[in-house]
């Protein structure tokens, strides 16, 4: 119980730290998430992105900027918090708490890069076809797409975590 409470407290601190870092950071400070995201988007779309100081990653050919607001920090925070709650029952000691924390952060970071790259790729695709949805402005389409992709990403990540957790439990019981 004590280890679980400690883990929740540390997770809350990590979330607070990430939000604090995000509110103060410029695009240059977020290279640790913007750079892999832009690389995944470039690999999927075949578009070249160039790092521009204090702006982010720019594609001049597509007139598209992956900037601070595209970093996906909010998704990372949501994913990390969700995974900590989902895997809290695995914490039995300080060491297992630390490993759960590390797994949650790594999985959240990986998911944030993949889901955010998916969101940006779809946004680029939609930007080329903005005339096909006349009832909505491009900003509204972008917002709806962001909500749908982020929520779907969280649901899929949660299901994946539950399945892996169940399988690990089975392996543990068999061993």
């Amino acid at each position, binding site marked *: 119980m004590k280890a679980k409470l400690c883990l929740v407290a540390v997770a809350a601190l990590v979330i607070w730290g990430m939000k604090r870092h995000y509110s103060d950071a410029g695009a240059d400070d977020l290279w640790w998430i913007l750079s892999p995201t832009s690389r995944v988007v470039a690999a999927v779309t075949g578009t070249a992105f160039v790092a521009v100081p204090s702006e982010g990653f720019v594609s001049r050919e597509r007139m598209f900027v992956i900037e601070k607001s595209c970093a996906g920090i909010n*998704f990372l925070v949501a*994913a990390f*918090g969700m995974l900590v709650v*989902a895997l809290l029952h695995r914490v039995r000691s300080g060491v297992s708490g630390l490993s759960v924390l590390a797994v949650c952060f790594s999985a959240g970071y990986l998911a944030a890069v993949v889901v955010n790259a998916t969101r940006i790729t779809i946004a680029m695709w939609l930007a080329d076809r903005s005339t096909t949805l006349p009832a909505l402005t491009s900003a509204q389409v972008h917002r709806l797409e962001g*909500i749908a992709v982020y929520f779907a990403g969280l649901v899929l990540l949660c299901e994946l975590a539950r399945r892996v957790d169940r399988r690990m439990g089975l392996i543990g019981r068999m061993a």
Partner: protein
Amino acid sequence: MTIGTRPTLPRTFRRAALPLGAYYAVTLALPIANGATHSGGAFVTHAIVVFVLPLLMIALFCAVHRAAQVLARVARSILPAARSRERLRKRATAIEYARAGE
């Protein structure tokens, strides 16, 4: 999202409660705690969209899953006749092979 064989709406909502809670916490609760409501109607409109869209997605998932189940049931009720014909044809072919072997 695999929810057993029958993902009823309440069951699916229970299953999606954790991601839904995490999403609402980050997109609604944290901004409200930081005073986003003071910024005027723009946040309220945004918040309504953020609140409603995931719920619609869950309901849509249930509807699509239910439709797929109904279609599968219809297909199963139509197929037995065709399946029994196919079984008879296979049995006849097997008997023919056996006789040819003799």
